[in-house]
């Protein structure tokens, strides 16, 4: 017996490739973030990337929790679900298990995703459902007007930490790797090209794709990432990691990262002691390396790694679920409720 969903899918099947522009992904709702918020750029880049994915708009679902970033679904002209604090990943998991045919995206923040929703996030990552998670990290609680977040730096003075924060911050990339993620990336709101390329790679990945996006909150934490995003300091403060390429950085591209044992260190390519051949070469498939790169994050003497840390394959949860169901059907035949009710020990009273 086919279900209502199967009927719906067979009715709405189209062979023609959807042709969209970024405009097709803009909803009729007024965008209500603060002027100058980094979220505008992330929204624009997402709407720009969507037409290239070749997915019909009605097959896309954006799910969010609570926080500034979580308003995102209202502005996407797709299906959307603005849910409750921290639970977007769990709701998205339910959507994906029910309907593996849908392209499911989660938009969350450092508070929503790493604090109240930390548990659901790590479990999604280990299960590897084919869901894209965009975590907007602004290192502050914006919607509740300026408390420190689980990614705020030690000593941060906020409304709830007048003497400075004594919480050690999460590194979202390390946390994600620790949760056995299959795709982990970091990008920045103020680098549209990089952001777009990472979003595309995330969309193509078969499995949970975790993307940390450095996002400027110009009201409560302005400039938190300027060292990494602004022209003057960016080149010397960020190392862009790319698969198969040595880790070179610096305005003159005259610096690199080499491994000293397991420890990454900055070396100069100018003084003749080291050459590009001595540098660490990134390999997206190397899980061990991904941890070493992620661990560079808060080290004061090392540039901030940005890019795709890891992209490996593992079966998705929803595919395994479907496989078990198919296996059971093959082995036992399609379930018959009448037979089940009458199975086992029964007796007749006349």
């Amino acid at each position, binding site marked *: 017996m086919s279900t209502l969903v199967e009927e719906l899918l067979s009715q709405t099947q189209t062979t023609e490739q959807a042709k969209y522009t970024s405009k097709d992904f803009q909803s009729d709702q007024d965008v209500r973030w603060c002027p100058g918020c980094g979220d505008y750029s992330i929204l624009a880049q997402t709407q720009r990337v969507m037409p290239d994915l070749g997915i019909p708009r*009605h097959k896309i679902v954006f799910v969010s929790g609570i926080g500034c970033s979580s308003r995102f679904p209202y502005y996407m002209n797709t299906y959307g679900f*603005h849910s409750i604090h921290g639970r977007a990943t769990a709701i998205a998991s339910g959507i994906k298990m029910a309907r593996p045919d849908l392209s499911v995206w989660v938009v969350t923040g450092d508070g929503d995703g790493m604090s109240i929703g930390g548990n659901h996030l790590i479990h999604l990552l280990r299960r590897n459902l084919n869901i894209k998670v965009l975590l907007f990290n602004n290192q502050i609680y914006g919607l509740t007007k300026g408390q420190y977040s689980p990614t705020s730096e030690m000593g941060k003075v906020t409304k709830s930490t007048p003497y400075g924060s004594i919480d050690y911050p999460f590194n979202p990339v390390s946390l994600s790797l620790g949760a056995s993620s299959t795709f982990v990336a970091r990008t920045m709101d103020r680098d549209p090209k990089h952001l777009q390329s990472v979003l595309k790679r995330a969309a193509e990945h078969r499995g949970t794709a975790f993307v940390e996006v450095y996002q400027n909150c110009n009201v409560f934490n302005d400039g938190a990432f300027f060292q990494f995003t602004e022209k003057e300091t960016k080149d010397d403060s960020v190392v862009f990691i790319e698969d198969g390429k040595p880790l070179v950085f610096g305005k003159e591209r005259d610096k690199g990262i080499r491994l000293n044992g397991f420890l990454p260190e900055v070396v100069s390519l100018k003084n003749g002691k080291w050459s590009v051949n001595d540098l660490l070469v990134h390999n997206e498939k190397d899980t061990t390396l991904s941890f070493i790169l992620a661990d560079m994050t808060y080290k004061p003497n090392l540039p901030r790694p940005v890019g795709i840390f890891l992209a490996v394959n593992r079966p998705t949860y929803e595919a395994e679920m479907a496989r078990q169901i198919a296996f059971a059907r093959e082995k036992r035949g399609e379930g018959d409720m009448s037979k089940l009710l009458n199975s086992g020990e029964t007796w007749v009273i006349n």
Partner: protein
Amino acid sequence: MAEKTTQKLDEVTIRFAGDSGDGMQLTGTQFTNTTAILGNDLSTLPDFPAEIRAPQGTLFGVSGFQIHFGSTEINTPGDACDVLVAMNAAALKVNLRSLIDGGAIIVNTDGFNDRNLKLAGYQSNPLKDGSLSKYQVFEVDISKLTALALQDLNLSSKIADRSKNFFALGMMYWMYNRPMEPTIKWIQSKFANKPDIMEANIRVLKAGWSYGETTEIFKVRYQVAAAKLPPGKYRNITGNQATAWGLMAAAKKARLDLFLGSYPITPASDILHELSIYKHFGVKTFQAEDEIAGITSAIGASFAGDLGVTTTSGPGVALKTEALGLAVMVELPIVVCNIQRGGPSTGLPTKTEQADLLQALYGRNGEAPIPVIAASTPADCFGVVFESCRLALKYMTPVIFLSDGYLGNGSEPWLIPDFNKLPDISVKFRTEKDGFLPYLRDEATLSRPWAVPGTPGLEHRIGGLEKQHLSGNVNYEPLNHEFMVKLRAEKIERIANEIPPAEVEGDKKGEILVVGWGSTYGAIKTAVARHRQKGNSVSHLHLKYLNPLPMNVGEILYNFKHVLVPEMNLGQLIKVLRAKYLVPAVGLNKIQGLPFMAVEIENKIDEMLKG
């Protein structure tokens, strides 16, 4: 062979009791299934500790299983037992209070050594000090007889001793004239991969039977004829199994896939286990990381077009509360099954209680009405959870289904329904683009359209923020909020228009009306029946729909001089009845983790009749 006589009984209650590792639940379940096959009516009460393997021989490690069966209608597991099978001193100590005067005690004498007596807190051996003189005591060295039956099998003494519950079962099969074949068949399939254990269990079962047959110790056998139940095909079923099957049946009749998001919790986990078996029915079971993910994944699945369900017990409902409010706001169909247990907090995980009614009715932030429906017997869970699904789909709302530990683990014979005759409860997904708005209202039910992702042209956004009427856009206007709060309330109230009127068992007018809900059904029914036999003016109203209440409840209440509300809580339904109908109802409250005995309700009615 010894001379044996056979005596006929209308009904009997047996309690098996032993260490939590002694297999008493298994023994009780086997005796129950065999008894069901013989056509007796029955009711069971498993009563076990929260500890999986409590220290051997201790009082808190005692596990019991009571079965009440007969040739007459049986509605409760029995107020007291006629026969107590005690595998050790602690089991005797804990359970003696539930044995009738003159009742039979079958003891495993090996469980009464000095250590056992000390652990049970006995100063002297009750088997020797005359303290059991008002009972008939049958002393059997079950452990030794088990070992003897297995001596040539080369099993370790520890493994061999594990079979001793089958000796007790064999004896009871002999004593109550039950066939061994169903249990032998069960052992054969259960231990198919462990032939030595299979052989041992079958041998010990037969040894127990033969012991009854050949020794002098038992002089009487009992015969309990089949009950005169309505004709048809029966099976035995527990409340949790009936719940799982009811959910599956509802999904089939709704032509939807069933999605269960659930976190293990006593006493609801068996529903998760049961549903996990039926992958060939397309059932998706998801063991979530916590209770919150259990319900939110179900909400997500429902948004995407599955029948989303979550199963839990009270503490889990507490965690799901915020998500329930979300489901109210986004108006998506989900069913939350609460298999209640003793609370608050972790409370009494393996004991029963019905103290989550007010939580179900009101336990959310904001005005968040949800339909609440309760099952009254184990088999009743099937139909009631089916009805929960029907209402959830038709009214696009979360529905709370209430069962409890007593119903979930208890069992009874069930007249198997004809699946083909169950109603079609399918609803239509919205597919028409023209005129679509996410919060359009059906004129009759006020439900909104179910437009699932994947439908071209119906892209829309939902969420927990207040909705503008019709458009579903985020809206903070004062009058819109008030309008929407009232609309959501009215949607649930309108369910009362279609549910059947409540029915009184007994006279429609009179002295006392006993009003109950949930698992108190059997005890109230029995107590009321006893009074009616005596000619007293007592009737019974049992409420399945707790929100909304059937339209005629007030009318029924006003036709009685007194209203008695027995509940396994401090008085929750009674608060609702008093508030809504302004009746001076009287409560009878038991909060012991145990179901009511019929006699407790009977006595209270007596007291009220005497005025």
